[in-house]
């Protein structure tokens, strides 16, 4: 009695449960590594997470499986080794570094010998962990706002329609098939026949044989021509028209506008915070939308669209006029991103300074032009590390802050927040995306 079994088709992922338990256990250290890797990545390539996953190396601290085992040092041991070449009894050897023979091996056998543990997180797992603090289940519903447009969709073929919808290929295919089936005489066979008749007609003195032949040919020609008339080249039967049905189309394309003040007051620290803010928003949106694009607009006293590298790392001097960036954004939307096709997200980072009474203009631009076409607009003000006073008092602030507060009062999909350190970034996102019923309006409250 024996049998062979083909197990290859068995469902995969038998150890999925083990993996989830493992990730759960190592969550804290994995999260720390994921956070760090975010900082080092470019936003554009989807946070730089390759589709096949992200390699993470975490300290093996919490992952130890301790056992009672003998220490690799001390005591009296005997090792039996193969391959003696010229030792005789009594020979002495220097003790090798890191324990002799078996002793050395044992230490690494249990897998705890190294302090680090490397493995690959899949892209989904990576994002899950990244957004863990954001309570994703709540977010998905709220944030995947999609605009709808009415479009048409092809819906096969019909036999009736308008000439502009005529499907030539299908019509001609039908026609050809019908012509072959009904043996429609080809133009060539008719012209051949005509030529033969002409040749015979040209002969002055025809033999009776030839006369007979001519008569027969003429008769044949007549049959062919009649048949050709009866079996048309294109028959109404052949006609096929494309049909279209109107349909609502969900736009699963999103564009994220990253607006940042790059004037002198924005230093390394401020830009790093801004980058994390943009990156998180973008990562989140790539999860929800099939296709996302990024637009980087930097501004001093004038605004420019730039690439990511320039956006974060190039230096620029000048004053600060925030409205220029908003103008630029409006311009770009008008040019390239029709709001009925794109889900538009705005993200703006600044240190809160603005020139003169430009802030009022910003308010107007946002309320009248930008917010009506945006799904969501987020503003972060990056403040000093020890600006507790500002962090805890949303009422206090300069012109720009005060004006934006007024915007917020009027628009539900506008959010603003103050941050001073990387750890503030996650909570902000929670604030941003959490359903209003549960979340507070401000981090500080």
């Amino acid at each position, binding site marked *: 009695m024996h049998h062979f079994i083909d197990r290859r088709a068995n469902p995969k992922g038998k150890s999925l449960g083990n993996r989830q338990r493992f990730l759960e256990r190592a969550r804290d250290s994995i999260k720390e590594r994921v956070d760090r890797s975010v900082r080092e990545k470019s936003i554009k390539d989807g946070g730089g997470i390759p589709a096949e996953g992200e390699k993470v190396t975490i300290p093996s601290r919490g992952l130890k499986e301790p056992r009672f085992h003998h220490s690799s040092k001390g005591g009296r041991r005997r090792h039996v080794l193969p391959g003696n070449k010229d030792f005789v009894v009594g020979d002495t050897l220097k003790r090798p570094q890191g324990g002799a023979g078996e002793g050395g091996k044992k230490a690494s056998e249990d897998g705890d010998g190294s302090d680090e543990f490397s*493995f690959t997180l899949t892209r989904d797992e990576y994002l899950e962990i990244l957004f863990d603090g954001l309570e994703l289940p709540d977010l998905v519903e709220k944030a995947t706002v999609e605009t709808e447009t009415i479009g048409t969709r092809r819906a096969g073929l019909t036999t009736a329609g308008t000439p502009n919808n005529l499907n030539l290929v299908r019509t001609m295919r039908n026609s050809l098939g019908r012509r072959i089936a009904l043996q429609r005489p080809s133009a060539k066979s008719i012209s051949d026949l005509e030529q033969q008749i002409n040749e015979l007609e040209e002969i002055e003195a025809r033999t009776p044989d030839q006369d007979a032949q001519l008569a027969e040919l003429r008769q044949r020609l007549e049959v062919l021509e009649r048949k050709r008339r009866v079996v048309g080249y294109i028959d109404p039967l052949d006609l096929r028209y494309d049909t279209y049905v109107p349909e609502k189309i969900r736009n699963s394309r999103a564009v994220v506008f990253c607006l940042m003040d790059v004037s002198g007051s924005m230093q390394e620290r401020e830009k790093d915070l801004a980058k994390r803010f943009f990156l998180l928003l973008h990562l989140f949106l790539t999860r929800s939308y099939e296709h996302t694009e990024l637009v980087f607009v930097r501004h001093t006293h004038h605004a420019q669209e730039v690439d990511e590298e320039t956006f974060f790392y190039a230096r620029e001097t000048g004053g600060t006029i925030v409205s220029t960036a908003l103008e630029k954004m409006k311009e770009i939307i008008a040019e390239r991103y029709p709001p009925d096709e794109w889900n538009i997200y705005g993200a703006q980072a600044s240190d809160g300074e603005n020139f003169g009474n430009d802030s009022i203009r910003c308010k107007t631009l946002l309320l009248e032009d930008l917010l009506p076409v945006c799904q969501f607009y987020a503003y972060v003000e990056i403040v000093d590390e020890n600006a507790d006073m500002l962090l805890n008092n949303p009422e206090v602030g300069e012109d720009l802050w005060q004006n934006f507060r007024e915007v917020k009062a009027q628009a539900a999909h506008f959010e603003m927040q103050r941050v001073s350190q990387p750890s503030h970034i996650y909570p902000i996102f929670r604030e941003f995306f959490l359903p209003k019923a549960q979340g507070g309006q401000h981090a500080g409250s």
Partner: protein
Amino acid sequence: MQAADTAAMPLFTGPEWTFELLEVARDAIEEIALGDLGLDVYPNQIEIISAEQMLDAYSCVGLPLMYQHWSFGKHFARDEALYRTGRQGLAYEIVINSNPCISYNMEENTMAMQTLVMAHAAFGHNHFFKNNYLFQQWTDAAGIHDYLAFAKNYIAACEERYGLTAVEEVLDAAHALQAQGVFRYGRPPKPTIAEREAMQRVREGHQTGMSILELWTDATLGRNREEDADFDPEASSRRKQMNLPQENLLYFLEKHSPVLEPWQCEILRIVRMLAQYLYPQKQTKVMNEGCATFVHYYIINKLFEQGRLTEGAYMEMMHSHTNVVLQPEFDDPRYSGINPYALGFAMMQDIRRICKNPTEEDREWFPDFAGDPDWRRVLRDAWANYRDESFIQQFLSPHLIRKFKLFTLADDAEQSHLIVSQIHNKSGYRAVRRDLARSYDLAYLEPDIQVTDADLKGDRELKLTHTVRDGIHLAEEDKDEVLKHLRRLWGYDVSLNAVDQDS
């Protein structure tokens, strides 16, 4: 005539395997394994699996069904990383000690490899599992599947009922004590129901008797106790009641822990049952692999002799075989201990040689079987009745010690240098053999830790004793971690005393 024709035909010619070819090859192997070698095997269930499934099997200590635990996920992640980066290949097969005997063959194997693997696992290992005394006495090949299914479902049910964290805590702790969860020398005998009832009656009568006796002792014999200060009758009877000293820590906790709930005890029981099931395999690595390697080597050579293997297939098998039995020397960078395949295979071949062409030396060393006309029986007998330690002690010949150029290196922490204490010469054979045998004795390799006392009516401190041999202590960091787990399972203080055996 027809039989001769089919015998001369190669079993297969191409590298690709099909189920039909596997069937044909298996039949040919079986013919030799049972007819010629006289093996006795469980029915075979040969399963073809993919690389991912092999990784799955790896992470779950090779068992076909396993409860869920994060450590298996960790092993999977590690093995997968090693495999994907090409730093570690996967085994050609995994075989499970069960009835029917399940072996997993990788789908990537060529037909030649599938043949080799079937001879190795489905017949070599299978015979060993069925016939070796350790497996016969300690494992239940027919019941393991049901038990694994029970364990998996039970733990899943616990997770649902008590939460993942609570179950994980118990499993973590139990895993930490897994090596101390086996009976090494003998399990508590399983009494029959009649016996149990009888015991119950005796115990009740005994207890009544005891309480009267205690009255007497307390009242009238109190003086004697003062004289014998070391003797504490209360502690002594307590130890007797709890079966102390007890080497199986998990068993002790399961039976006597004051804080564990019944489901937690059941989890400890599951972990220790599996540890006990796997324990014979730990004790027979050299023999088990030696037996399987010898069997596949013998069978493929026989098949080749009969003209049933093409030269190409034979060369491929030999190539793989030689890789498997490679033994790098101690100063080779590839050296990582003695290769159980190499030692085991060499010893089996040597036993056959001693039976067929014994030298004077062999006759002197192995009078029992040197020149025995039936080498097959001698080998089968060895496979059935020994474990690595005793097998080496009994069968390692001077010839092999010379061949492997074995020598003993004495490593005394108090000395500044290592000393070559024995080499492969006349005066060294026995000592080298003894030292090598000892290095396969699990009772010696694994720390000897026993429960020596626990006063449930007093301070409830669990007292463990580690018997230190040869001055080798426990690794500190891990020891503290395991003790934390132990404390969780016991609920009260736990102390571990090291007692030097030699002093």
